[in-house]
């Protein structure tokens, strides 16, 4: 049921590292990925016993951002002496970025967390593969020779790996945790800044506002407001989300198109300078809404305007947590 890949080397060394960390009591718990209940999926798992580490897997379907499991849980996780647990997190690039950014926002203390870096080469876009296969039931998935092979009862499809990974993964520059990884599996490279020309969204930006609006209406037309994107997002940790707030009622709670678009617009606004481009929101969407364009735009705004990329280091203040007298203000209205 899992994904058989050439990653087995990495998988093995990940298990060894995890076993050692648990044996040496460097960590109390390790959060990682395990097999999902259906093909084309994976689940998060928390392991605290050496003998269980073989449950860990690593493949191109590990789409969950594990940093999500730390934020509301941390205060409760203390041992019998009242000391906080040491937690190991199997971190691909975006999990590492999320952890670092959460530390900048003072939500977690990196001293209690061990980042176990693991290089990632992209997450398979499940929705697109499922769409291509259609109604038929997928029973087995494997990745070999840059092809995703999907097998069912009486069919076998093969998809090019590069074309069927998440859009965001194609432009990902941080394959392994950018810095401060305490243990590394495979090759981890340090990243201190990112160069990107954002050419992929320039076509969209050049469109007229009515074309853009038509795209947005079409994109969110099927949204049911299940809030799966919010629940999967490592940065959406507010105890009361603005859409759940009813004193005052800011925005409608219906599934009318304007209300849906407002939800996504404000969620994007709240993620400006915080989004780590992990694509978890897109991976978990039950109706397959692809939010990558908005994520890329957010990255572009903070990069071009404030020269900031979230989750690369713990020193730089994110743009929405600081201000400067010298910000660009070319958008301000001036007299003719």
């Amino acid at each position, binding site marked *: 049921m899992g994904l058989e890949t050439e990653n087995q080397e990495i998988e093995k060394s990940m298990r060894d590292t995890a076993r050692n960390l648990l044996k040496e009591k460097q960590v109390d718990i390790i959060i990682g990925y395990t097999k999902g209940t259906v093909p084309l999926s994976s689940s998060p798992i928390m392991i605290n016993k050496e003998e269980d580490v073989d449950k860990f897997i690593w493949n191109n379907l590990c789409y969950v951002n594990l940093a999500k499991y730390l934020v509301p849980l941390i205060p409760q996780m203390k041992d019998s002496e009242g000391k906080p647990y040491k937690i190991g997190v199997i971190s691909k690039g975006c999990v590492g970025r999320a952890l670092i950014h959460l530390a900048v926002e003072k939500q977690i203390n990196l001293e209690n967390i061990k980042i176990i870096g693991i290089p990632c080469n992209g997450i398979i876009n499940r929705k697109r593969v499922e769409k291509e296969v259609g109604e038929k039931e997928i029973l087995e998935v494997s990745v070999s020779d840059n092809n995703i092979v999907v097998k069912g009862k009486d069919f076998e499809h093969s998809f090019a790996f590069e074309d069927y990974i998440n859009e965001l993964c194609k432009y990902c520059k941080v394959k392994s945790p950018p810095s401060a990884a305490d243990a590394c599996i495979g090759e981890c490279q340090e990243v201190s800044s990112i160069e990107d020309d954002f050419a992929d969204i320039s076509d*969209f*930006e050049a469109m007229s*506002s*009515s*074309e*853009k*609006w*038509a*795209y*947005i209406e079409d994109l969110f037309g099927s949204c049911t407001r299940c809030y799966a994107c919010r629940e999967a997002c490592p940065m959406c940790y507010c105890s009361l989300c*603005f859409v759940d707030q009813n004193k005052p009622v*800011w*925005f*409608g709670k219906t599934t*009318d198109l*304007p*209300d849906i*678009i*407002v939800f996504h*617009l*404000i969620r*994007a*606004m709240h993620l*400006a*300078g915080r989004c780590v481009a992990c694509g978890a929101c897109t991976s978990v969407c039950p109706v397959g809404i692809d939010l990558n364009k*908005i994520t890329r*735009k*957010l990255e572009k*705004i*903070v990069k071009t*305007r*404030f020269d900031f990329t979230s989750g690369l280091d713990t020193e730089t203040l994110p*743009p*929405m947590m600081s*201000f*400067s*007298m010298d*910000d*660009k*203000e070319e*958008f*301000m*209205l*001036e*007299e*003719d």
Partner: protein
Amino acid sequence: MNETTIEAGQVANNKEWEPKIIAFLCNWCSYAGADLAGVSRIQYPPSIRVVRVPCSGRINPYFIIKSLTDGWDGIVISGCHPGDCHYLSGNLVARRRFAILRELLEFFGIEQGRVNFMWASAAEGERFANLIKKTTRIVKELGPNTKFKRRW
């Protein structure tokens, strides 16, 4: 005409149509600037409805987006010039917020002129009137706000 409902497009063609613009003015500069424009008897279009806020930093992006969903045709946000803020840095914080919100709104397909940001001090009655004239002209060209407006 027998039609009891008038489509927004038809209203736009009607020369009588005047945009309704909501203006968020900061208490210390722009509100006083608007007041000065008034007492100096400077003429400007009666298209704006003013909401007085303590500082431009008080303006939550929610205000702006809710104004759009409530059907305002245009929005003006005005505060003190950078460096003149009564609370020292409120308008600098607001400026970052507006910069991001403006780009996002544009990305979502809201026309650029729908939401306008400006600075006007308490002594700039003339400038305030001119900028309101300009905003009214921009919004008038765009026509009524139909995109976000909720249909009941």
